[in-house]
């Protein structure tokens, strides 16, 4: 083998590993910055992280696998309610166990939703995703003894983390917990995306016929990805239940699903970093504007969506990446 061939693969592999390490270091730095700059607003930052996990889960199925879904909040809500019900009804108050409950709830919901949604393609697939989120919503709405119905599930009091750190009123424990969870999930997802499985998913997105001609079954792979995506969303849901100590029907709403998609598109789908960027920008903006009544907010989300589609279809992160490549002299 020629020397050039020996070098290139290693260089590429270690280059992307290096860029991942830089990325994670940057995230940690940003998280620390948030802690220092907004000590009174840690609840907001924690919520941003919970939603970021939802948006990451959307990036997995939509950005990487190409399955358009408007029902992802079902997985988030499943995780939130699983953790919440575990705490409020069964006394499972250890935060780590609650996260595990969230993962289980989200993964199971992911399996169900994945099997249903992958039954069809195109518009019928979209319809299935919308019908599913409404179905989950109604289920939570009516099973009041479990979920508290439209009043929400309360009475969730998480115990101290690792038996040492109680969840204090300023939300410091909650925030650090959230950051650790996010970084852990993010590292795992970066590994997943770079793995043969991730490569297969990207192939399925572009040309499922070619994937079949290689002997791989797109359907089975996509269902697996849906389960993983459910687990990720479930972590976010559990985090939300733990840190806000309440679970409401809004965690199972179509609007949340749609907003998650907006955040993903805003930041740029397919890179995982875009999902984070989009979430942060969107939610900070929402907090800034939250004084206005909800309908004005809806109009602005709509306008934002239209603007992104028209002017920045790759999202902010994607467009930034393109610009950077162009600046470096390589065509995108």
């Amino acid at each position, binding site marked *: 083998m020629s020397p050039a061939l020996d070098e290139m693969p290693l260089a590429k592999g270690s280059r992307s590993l290096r860029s991942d390490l830089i990325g994670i270091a940057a995230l940690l730095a940003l998280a620390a910055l948030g802690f220092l700059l907004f000590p009174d607003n840690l609840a907001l930052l924690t919520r941003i992280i919970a939603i970021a996990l939802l948006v990451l889960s959307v990036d997995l199925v*939509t950005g990487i696998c190409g399955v*358009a879904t*408007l029902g992802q909040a079902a997985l988030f809500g499943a995780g939130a309610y699983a953790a919440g019900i575990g705490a409020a009804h069964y006394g499972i108050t250890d935060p780590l166990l609650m996260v595990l409950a969230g993962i289980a709830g989200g993964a199971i919901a992911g399996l169900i939703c994945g099997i*249903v949604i992958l*039954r*069809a*393609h*195109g*518009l*019928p697939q*979209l*319809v*299935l995703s*919308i*019908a*599913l989120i*409404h*179905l989950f919503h*109604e*289920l939570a709405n*009516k099973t009041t003894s479990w979920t508290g119905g439209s009043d929400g599930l309360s009475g969730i009091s998480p115990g101290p983390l690792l038996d040492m750190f109680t969840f204090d009123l300023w939300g410091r424990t909650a925030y650090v917990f959230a950051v650790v969870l996010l970084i852990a999930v993010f590292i795992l997802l970066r590994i997943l995306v770079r793995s043969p499985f991730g490569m297969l998913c990207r192939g399925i997105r572009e040309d499922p016929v070619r994937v079949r001609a290689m002997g791989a079954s797109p359907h089975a792979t996509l269902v697996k990805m849906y389960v993983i995506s459910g687990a990720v969303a479930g972590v976010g849901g559990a985090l939300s239940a733990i840190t806000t100590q309440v679970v409401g029907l809004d965690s199972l709403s*179509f*609007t949340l699903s*749609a907003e998650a*998609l*907006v955040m993903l*598109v805003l930041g740029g789908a397919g890179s995982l970093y875009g999902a984070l960027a989009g979430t942060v920008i969107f939610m900070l903006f929402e907090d800034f504007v939250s004084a206005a009544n909800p*309908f*004005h*907010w*809806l*109009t*602005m*989300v*709509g*306008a*934002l*969506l*239209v603007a*992104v*589609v*028209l002017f920045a*279809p790759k999202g902010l992160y994607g467009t930034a990446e393109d610009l950077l490549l162009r600046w470096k002299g390589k065509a995108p």
Partner: protein
Amino acid sequence: MNTIFSIGVDALAYGMVLFVISIGLSVTMGLMRVVNLAHGAFAMIGGYIASYAAQSLGLGYAAAVLLAVAGTIIIAIPIERVLYRRIYGQPELTQVLMTIGVTFMIIGIANYVFGPTLKTIPLPDELRGSVNLGFRSIATHRVFAIVCGLIVAAALWYAIEKTAFGIKLRAAVDNAAMAAALGVRTEVVYAVSFAVAVGLAALGGVVGAELLPVEPYYALRYMVTFLVVVSVGGAGSIPGALVACLLLGAIDTAGRYLMPEFGEFFFYLAVIAIVWVFPRGLAGGRGA
């Protein structure tokens, strides 16, 4: 027996209202291949204009309907030119995102202009009361809805199958490039079809206001329903849309009568079941 009759009539009326609203979506999806999630929003606009015309301007029902249809078309034309034209031929996700954006904006603006409360469209005396069939009586406005639906179906069928415009429309649906090469001005066909689709949606929004109440979240609440009609009935198919609408109307009405507590849950479950059995629509055959 009485219950079955009531369910049947309500289902028929509801199905016909759905048909009038959704057939436009079916045609634009089949023609321009645009996944238009904002279609319900246009029906809602129609309802709002009619309500405003009747309540605040004191116009009669017929005038309110005309104003609603005309007004909605006038609002829709610039939206089509500025926004929809940019997404013809784009990937589905792009279209979904754009049309959701449009929907959200319309909901927000509707709330800002009209407020969050339910709007009613007062029925004229001719449509109040009921029609006595001898063994049963039916609310007149339901009969009106059913008749409207049938007229729309017949008129559309005639327009598409028998007129020159219909031929151009079918040509453009089958093969837009070829139709253009033959001199069919596809842009005009698209614009006119979009206008008709939106006009029908507005008509349905007005006529169906008793069954589908007009409030800002209307566009989201019934989004699934309209989309299911098109995906099950098959884009561009009038008979398909009719069957799908009647089916959904029956399911929804039956659910509301027989299981009012769990009606919505049952409806969505039924929707999933229908799409599961017909993942490519009624005409597409079963299975993947």
